[in-house]
């Protein structure tokens, strides 16, 4: 092999650089986040927990299209409880802490949904209600 002296150390440096993010984290991704269950103690959601975990983004997109495009704003009934379709209207009514619920996983997975550019977080909703009653 020609130029053995430069190629092999070069390859080793290359591999080390490529693996540096993994090595930097000590081959661990950190502890898996545990999103906070609803502080109000609600046990029931519109779908079983496992399905919500996998598909909440699809469900939100479906709701969005149904409500905005098809004007199907009917409520969703799950186990006798009525929910209005919507992030602000349904989800955040029980999951009242966006930081401990949504953000805990999204930050871990480095997902940056733009929901909150327009939608109000429960904290903002609460602040708005407070201002109104004043």
């Amino acid at each position, binding site marked *: 092999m020609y130029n053995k002296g430069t190629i092999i150390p070069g390859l080793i440096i290359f591999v080390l650089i490529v693996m540096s993010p993994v090595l930097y984290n000590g081959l661990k991704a950190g502890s898996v986040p545990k999103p906070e269950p609803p502080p109000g103690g609600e046990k029931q959601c519109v779908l079983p927990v496992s399905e919500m975990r996998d598909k909440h983004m699809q469900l939100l997109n479906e709701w969005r*299209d149904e409500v905005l*495009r098809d*004007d199907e*704003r009917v409520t969703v009934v799950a186990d006798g409880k009525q929910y209005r379709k919507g992030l*602000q209207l349904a989800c955040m009514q029980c999951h009242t802490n966006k930081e401990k619920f949504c953000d805990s996983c999204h930050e871990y997975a480095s997902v940056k949904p733009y929901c909150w550019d*327009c*939608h109000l977080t429960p904290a903002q909703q609460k602040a*708005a209600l407070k*201002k109104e009653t004043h």
Partner: protein
Amino acid sequence: MDNERRKFLKIAGISALAGIGAPAIAKLTSTAAIAAGTEGHAAGDAPHAEEAASGKQYGMVIDMRKFIERPELLDQAIAACALAHNIPEFPPDKKKSDIKWIWKTPFENAFTEESATHLSKTIEEAQFPVLCNHCAHPSCVRVCPTKATFKQKDNGIVAMDYHRCIGCRFCMAACPYGARSFNWEDPRPYVKTINPDFPTRMRGVVEKCNFCGERLALGLQPACVEACKGSGAMVFGDINDEKSEVRQVLAKEFTIQRKPSAGTKPSVFYIV
């Protein structure tokens, strides 16, 4: 040798011509093309023909006599709309950022096709409420490249999906009524009182009146109509339903529409 080359070139030229020309000839002579041609012609005629209105089309009659009598009604209506939809209010030095769903304008700006010479004093001084006309043929919907704005099939409302809006502002150029506003900056700091049940908008999207689709779903009237409840200044309903209250008013009173020659078939009528 030369003779052979000459022959070859001739044949090649003729086949090339035939190859290029044949599809064009086939297209011109085929019956399908003739049928398509006439169909295209008929489609071009459609906007001029009076077609039967079908399906639901929400619309509104605005009675200016009531608004002139009680000018505070319009302020109430505008305030109710702003509250229901988290509409920001910008300081006077940021007029270009203004977001308008329902707003005031004088006669000559609202009805540019009507003559404004020798207007009566009351009309000249009156402030007309103007809003999205929820047209039967909305030009904004035709130009939207992402289908972020569309006509809702079941009620004729020209609605928006802010999630899809890319802020190209074609719709603003297309709307003959100036009923669309662009969010030049984050509107949130300028929203006075926030309605916790409705989102705000973000910087870079276009927004407009939605005829209170979210309130209609709850069986309520639009916020502006409710604000002038009892006065009869605004009547809302299905303008394709002969028995509806709006149609009763339309049948009784002489009404005008804004810019009818734009061909968009606006659904908001004015009694002047």
